């Protein structure tokens, strides 16, 4: 298996923009869709379209089977203890908000504390700010050093008996550094503080074993790992999910409804109120199958080559990335004298899609004293040729501006 084989699975990659072949380097925002994902959505929308769990007819049975077998696939993919610990959501943001509400309503009271880190995506900051406002709780921030590493040593002192939850990104969407989540979980657990891991970027580039990490919650999106948009997962330890109050009320999440009082469905139904994204959630199966293909040795060697090329070229000229020891192939950088937006606009006209701006991490931008950065994030379908073309184009763009 090689990169070209992988490319062939993604129809969107063969298009041109402004008459130039598309070079898609904005994978951390969203990846391209697998053809198998699009086909499955098509098939489910056009054929097996029925609401799940309730009706007895043939289509409903098939649709339910598609949906529930996805839960098994995700459980297996994450090595979760049981399928009840897998809750489907619309994405990472929805997963985190679910915990912020349900965990918050159940366990967080006035004067309690929540910990987030300085490098979090807004999605892992704002839900906790809202919770703290609602409850009169306190948001504490774990800092990062000048290289962008979490100050894990400070964590122990940050946790008190009032700390109810620590919420940390597996991989920062700006820095790309893989955080030592296992160590963080250890430290937190030794102080009886559970941990939520924002896995939006983390799930894409490595095998995640939630039992090995021992985290209490793990949230991620399907759309960044080649599945359909509007699909997401919340993994939660059963001991927590069982005790948490429901997030949304509605159909599917109940056992019996009486005006004298309603009882809730067992897990995971309790957290899946209303009709779910039934034609899209099953595409997670295709994404998971695809992730399996990426373990091919020959392919990995080729991917490594692209990554090493970019790391080398970008660090030579632009002094990025910082701390390279354990990173995903994601590079955020600032070019002196050239604004990130200008660079992105010019690269766009050369057919290259990169991200510029604050990357939904304003506190992190403030930390490094910049108004924004350019971010390049590659996927297994990006070739060495594309990387070379990108570096050449970047040089040209910089020379136009500086």
């Amino acid at each position, binding site marked *: 298996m090689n990169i070209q084989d992988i490319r062939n699975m993604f129809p969107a990659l063969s298009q041109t923009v402004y008459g130039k072949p598309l070079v898609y380097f904005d994978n951390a925002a969203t990846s391209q869709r697998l053809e198998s994902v699009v086909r499955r959505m098509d098939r489910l929308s056009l054929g097996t379209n029925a609401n799940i769990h309730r009706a007895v007819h043939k289509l409903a049975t098939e649709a339910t089977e598609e949906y529930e077998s996805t839960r098994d696939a995700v459980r297996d993919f994450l090595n979760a203890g049981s399928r009840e610990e897998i809750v489907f959501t619309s994405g990472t943001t929805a997963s985190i908000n679910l915990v912020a509400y349900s965990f918050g309503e159940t366990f967080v009271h006035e004067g309690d504390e929540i910990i987030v880190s300085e490098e979090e995506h807004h999605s892992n900051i704002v839900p906790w700010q809202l919770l703290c406002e609602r409850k009169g709780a306190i948001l504490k921030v774990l800092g990062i050093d000048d290289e962008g590493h979490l100050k894990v040593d400070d964590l122990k002192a940050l946790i008190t008996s009032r700390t109810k939850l620590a919420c940390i990104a597996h991989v920062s969407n700006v820095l790309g550094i893989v955080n030592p989540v296992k160590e963080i979980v250890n430290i937190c657990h030794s102080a009886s503080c559970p941990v939520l891991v924002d896995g939006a970027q983390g799930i894409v580039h490595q095998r995640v074993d939630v039992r090995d990490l021992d985290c209490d919650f793990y949230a991620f999106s399907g759309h960044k790992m080649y599945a359909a948009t509007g699909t997401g997962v919340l993994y939660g330890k059963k001991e927590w999910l069982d005790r948490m109050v429901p997030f949304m009320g509605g159909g599917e999440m109940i056992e019996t409804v009486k005006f004298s009082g309603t009882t809730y469905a067992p897990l995971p139904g309790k957290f899946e109120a209303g009709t779910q994204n039934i034609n899209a959630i099953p595409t997670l199966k295709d994404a998971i199958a695809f992730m399996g293909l990426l373990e091919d040795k020959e392919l990995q060697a080729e991917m490594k080559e692209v990554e090493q090329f970019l790391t080398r070229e970008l660090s030579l000229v632009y002094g990025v990335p910082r701390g390279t020891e354990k990173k995903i192939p994601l590079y955020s950088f600032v070019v002196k004298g050239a*604004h990130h937006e*200008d660079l992105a*606009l010019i690269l766009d*006209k050369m057919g290259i899609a990169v991200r*510029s701006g*604050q990357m939904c991490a304003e506190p992190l931008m403030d930390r490094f004293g910049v108004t924004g950065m350019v971010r390049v994030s590659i996927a297994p379908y990006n070739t060495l040729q594309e990387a070379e073309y990108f570096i050449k184009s970047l040089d040209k763009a910089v020379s*136009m501006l500086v």
Partner: protein
Amino acid sequence: MKTLEEAKQAVIDDFSMYDEWLDKYEYLIELGKNLEEYPEESKTEDKLIKGCQSRVWLDSKVEDGKIWFKADSDAIITKGIISLLISVYSGRDPKEIAEDDFGFISQIGLKENLSPTRANGLVSMIARIKELAAEMVKVEDTKSNGQEVLTAEDAAELAPLYDNVVLAIKQVYDPEIPVNVYDLGLIYELVINKKHEAYIKMTFTAPTCPMADEVLAEVKKSVADVPGITGCEVELTFEPPWDQSMLSDEARVELGLDLND
């Protein structure tokens, strides 16, 4: 000065010389670099139009019924587009700007730079230009309605309104001096038209007053709340600059100043 249409056509002609996108950008970068300097001291929070991408500062002034713009950005391509916008729109009749559709931007192929999804400062800058122009039109309308010919009956009807509006203005105090803005002499003009809309031209003791917006809003609200008043426009001016001779006798007493000072 060229007419608005001529100014637009000139920009369209300039752009038609470039086929290649990179050449168009080169041209915009050049324009950006040559944009008239924007004063550092005007890079204040209230003039900043924030976006996720580039930041834009926009300042405007009104002179002889025309509205003039100055702007800046930290991104050079945006600055180039600002230069185009200024060359087309600055120094125009606000009415002309308020009625313009800014469609020429897409005619020169810059539409994607203006797509709202870009979340850059440019879209908001155009919105702000239109907003400022529209505000100006409204102020002018109210003012000119105030210059209408009044019959004796109209005047009799308006007289008590003037008294009440003055009382309302006297409810608003300078944030630093314990005297209301009327007795301080900050009100330069007060006109009420036949539609019972009030037009007020006022100043501040110093152009740097940090509470200026709050005070203007307070005057506007206080006057608009007067029974019988149907609307209120407040215009800020620093011409002529305020000085102590504008204080009323009441204010002088309040501040312990000599009445003949």
